């Protein structure tokens, strides 16, 4: 039982990071960027390329791949989404464009590395450290630590610093920001950097814990999306409770029913939320137009 609770904490911390990275882009641009899934995949595959195939020192490989992912995120923004925004297209078209971008990037990874699953973590599997009668591997410990530190610090940045306040200002009213002289494009770029950074970290952490394949980012991102819809965008408490709910439902259904029904249960939760409580935990409006 304690082991299940621990596993719930670990996977919910990953979902929390994905959801945070997703909502950072949503704050400023108001659309769901599916291409983030490709950035998650890129993060882990670059680590694989540098540390396993090219034998770079590990820490260096991680830093290098995080940097490359951030650059990729900025390129996506500058080459595609910036122009879409200038045309002020509907969020639907944004979504489809980001879907297309995801398909392109994911297949680039498949082309270069192949579709089979890869393992970064080539150290032998440890039994794990035993703490209070539960087993936890070093990677899982690191996952818990890094994700909580990142989540808290990004939220502090959003709440306390000038940049964070500008991001929230752009979220609530773009036109007013322009009047007050906040450069909205610069703020969007900063939030894209932050969210690509988080995506890369999520990819690396989850690839270390389990195997990776070119499509694992998409599943992870969809869970993040479910967390956002359940929790409500822009609400820290909502995100935390959403990710806890989703991962506990997944682990309990895996334990009591069968692990193969995890996805089904997750999306049934999503749909029942859309019926019963369409505004999420936080009560923020999901619909953009009320008819």
């Amino acid at each position, binding site marked *: 039982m304690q082991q299940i609770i621990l596993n719930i904490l670990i996977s919910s911390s990953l979902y929390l990071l994905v959801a945070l990275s997703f909502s950072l882009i949503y704050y400023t641009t108001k*659309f*769901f960027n599916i291409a983030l899934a490709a950035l998650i995949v890129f993060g882990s595959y670059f680590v694989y390329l540098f540390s396993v195939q090219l034998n770079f020192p590990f820490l260096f490989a991680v830093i290098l791949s995080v940097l490359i992912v951030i650059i990729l995120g900025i390129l996506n923004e500058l080459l*595609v989404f910036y*122009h*879409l925004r200038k*045309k002020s*297209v*509907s*969020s*639907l*078209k*944004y*979504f*489809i*464009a980001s*879907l*297309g*971008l*995801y*398909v*392109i990037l*994911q*297949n*680039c990874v*498949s*082309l270069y590395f192949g579709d089979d699953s890869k393992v970064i973590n080539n150290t032998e599997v440890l039994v794990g450290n035993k703490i209070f009668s539960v087993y936890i591997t070093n990677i899982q410990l690191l996952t818990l630590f890094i994700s909580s530190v990142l989540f808290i610090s990004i939220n502090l940045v959003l709440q306390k610093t000038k940049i964070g306040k500008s991001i929230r200002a752009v979220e609530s009213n773009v036109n007013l920001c322009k009047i007050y002289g906040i450069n909205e494009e610069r703020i969007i770029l900063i939030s894209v950097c932050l969210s690509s950074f988080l995506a890369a970290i999520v990819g690396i952490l989850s690839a270390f814990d389990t195997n990776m394949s070119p499509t694992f980012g*998409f599943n992870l991102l*969809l869970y993040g*999306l*479910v967390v956002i*819809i359940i929790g409500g965008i822009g609400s820290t408490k909502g995100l935390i409770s959403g990710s806890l709910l989703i991962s506990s439902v997944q682990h309990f259904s895996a334990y009591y029913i*069968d692990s*193969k*029904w995890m*996805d*089904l249960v997750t*999306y*049934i939760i*999503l*749909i029942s939320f*859309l*019926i019963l409580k*369409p505004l999420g935990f936080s009560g923020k409006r*999901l*619909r*953009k*137009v009320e*008819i």
Partner: protein
Amino acid sequence: MEYILHLIIFICFYTILAQSLNLAAGKAGLISLAHAGFYGIGAYTTAILSVKLGLSFWINLPFAMIISGLIAFVVSLIALRTIDDYFIICTLGIQIIIFSIMNNWMDLTRGPLGIPGIPSINLFGFPVDEKIPFLVLSIVIVALIWLVLKNIYNSGFGKILVAISEDEIYIQSVGKNVYKAKIISFTISAILASIPGVLYAHYITYIDPTSFTVNESIFILSIVIIGGLGNLSGSFFAAAFMVLLPEALRFVGMPDSIAANMRQIIYGLILVAVMMTGKNGVKELFLKKHSF
């Protein structure tokens, strides 16, 4: 020659899929990522009915259409509470639920093992197990569906759908039931999507869940977008293009393993290009024609 016929049959399947999605996506603005799910429901209904109960094509087809329509009706009641990108995500969730049932409900669908030994179609004592008769049957069905959709497009109901995608609030204010119209168009689109599923199951005689994944849904959606939203003949040409693209790549000398990924990269690029230029489909991308 056999292979060319095989490709043309697949063009028929994807034409029906794309044109039926076009009714919901192009006319009513309901971009759905659950279409491969309804395609799969058609195929699985056929497989289960004909293998376990030994029923024939003429019973399978209406059954598949009814089941797919019922599921789509219930789903649309839920999904249409949301709009735009939330609607897409909702349909994505439904697609994953349908796939998960196909992949995991071992007793009913045999999961990843798939269902083999589906008998081929028998039309009035005339077996359709060769390529050519099957092709003729598919073309007849494509033509029928094309006609049906064209009539829906030109009917008063089609006009309401177009009006909804242009200005939802206005059309509501003149007293049309927007919610009902959306539900009807989504349900009709799912009913039509189950037909190629029935044909596919009888044609290949073996089905497994990997033919009905999220990627398949994205593929069908991109056919619709490449062909142009609301453009029936565009959907047909785009389906032909997308089915023939891997063959063209192989013709250039690209190995199979790369061609599959290259095809996806190419359609991803087209999707992004069509969205960025704001044109409706590839035709307008090259002809520089604006439609009003």
